[in-house]
């Protein structure tokens, strides 16, 4: 039996083999046009560029409108109180801006930056709640106990069988992050590879 030699292989790898010449003349199969159209359409449907270009200015406009609305609401909302001092206390409980102008001290005090975690005693509870909506620590959130890797793999495979590809990808990504060295079945390893999933964070 003749054993192929490396001379021929090196010639082949360098593109100087007659086989390559013949192959280039020969291999001209192409995918059908309807397949081309279907794939291109799928790619275009998945990447609506124009919509994305509108998103940012739309988002900026929405934030601006919300901000203006909040300022307007704060100025006219009856629950907003100035600094609670005897000079500005209004028995009706409404913000007395004229009183604030006449007695600037509480205004200056109010304008001083307040640490989020240590509200000033001069700030009314209503204003405190508006200014620091998240001041209360949320109830201690307990991380849900992670199921075992084997159970996660079963779950991912069930998602794939149910056609829930995106959910399966997210679950697989989570598994790789929590158990980076866990051996995966071949199909999931291939999927992770094709989706460029890794245990590394961005």
């Amino acid at each position: 039996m003749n054993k192929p030699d490396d001379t021929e292989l090196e010639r082949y790898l360098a593109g100087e083999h007659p086989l390559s010449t013949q192959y280039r003349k020969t291999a001209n199969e192409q995918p059908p046009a309807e397949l081309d159209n279907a794939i291109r359409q799928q790619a275009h449907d998945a990447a609506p560029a124009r919509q994305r270009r509108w998103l940012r200015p739309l988002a900026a406009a929405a934030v601006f409108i919300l901000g203006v609305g909040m300022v307007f609401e704060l100025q006219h909302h009856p629950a907003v109180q100035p600094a609670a001092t005897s000079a500005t206390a209004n028995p009706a409980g409404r913000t007395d801006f004229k009183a604030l102008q006449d007695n600037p001290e509480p205004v200056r005090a109010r304008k001083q930056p307040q640490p989020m975690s240590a509200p000033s005693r001069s700030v009314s509870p209503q204003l405190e709640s508006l200014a620091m909506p998240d001041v209360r620590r949320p109830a201690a959130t307990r991380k849900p106990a992670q199921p075992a890797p084997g159970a996660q793999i079963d779950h991912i495979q069930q998602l794939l069988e149910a056609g829930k590809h995106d959910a399966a990808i997210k679950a697989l990504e989570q598994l790789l992050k929590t158990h980076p060295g866990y051996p995966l079945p071949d199909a999931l390893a291939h999927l992770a590879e094709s989706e460029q999933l890794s245990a590394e964070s961005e």
Partner: protein
Amino acid sequence: MPYGMASTFANPASEVNADTTAEQAIPAPHQATDEALMQRYAGGDAHAFDILYARHRGPLYRYLLRGCGDTDLAGELFQDVWTRLIRSRGRYRVKAKFTTWLFRIAHNRLVDHYRRKRPTGEMPADLPAPEGDQPEIHAGHREAADRLINAIAALPFEQREAIALKEERGLSLAEIAQVTNVGRETVKSRLRYALAKLREALPDE
């Protein structure tokens, strides 16, 4: 760095600057690298996909056709590979050459297909050669051309695949090894044996 945003590339030929818009920094589409086009597509530029697709559709299709030996199946696998690429565009990172990544997806898809058919996980040693009565494959081929295609189709899967990757995309030994997840020496061995068999089948080549 979030996917889809303009970014500097490892390949300096792309000349992308993170501080400029994609339209200003990236060269004309026909000059852009595959990696640059894929990132543009990930950012929402569907036209970038069209260019990528035009560049790789033929070689990828023929690679799958050589791998499975069936036109209809090659079409299914072909569409599946592009679907996976489209779905994972948001996660695309320039970690490896685009071609290597694309054909790795295709290789995995071929392997998955055969493993579903053969639960033992063994790849078929041989696949039926493309039949002479499939005009869409052999239209315009001369007799010598038919012999070459048939000879390649008669190779074992691993050898056939190595030849197809070399011929269709000009991949190097290292790149073929990366796509097929084997060592470089294994790829050399497969190509050696493939060349010997093809030479025997085509003595006048």
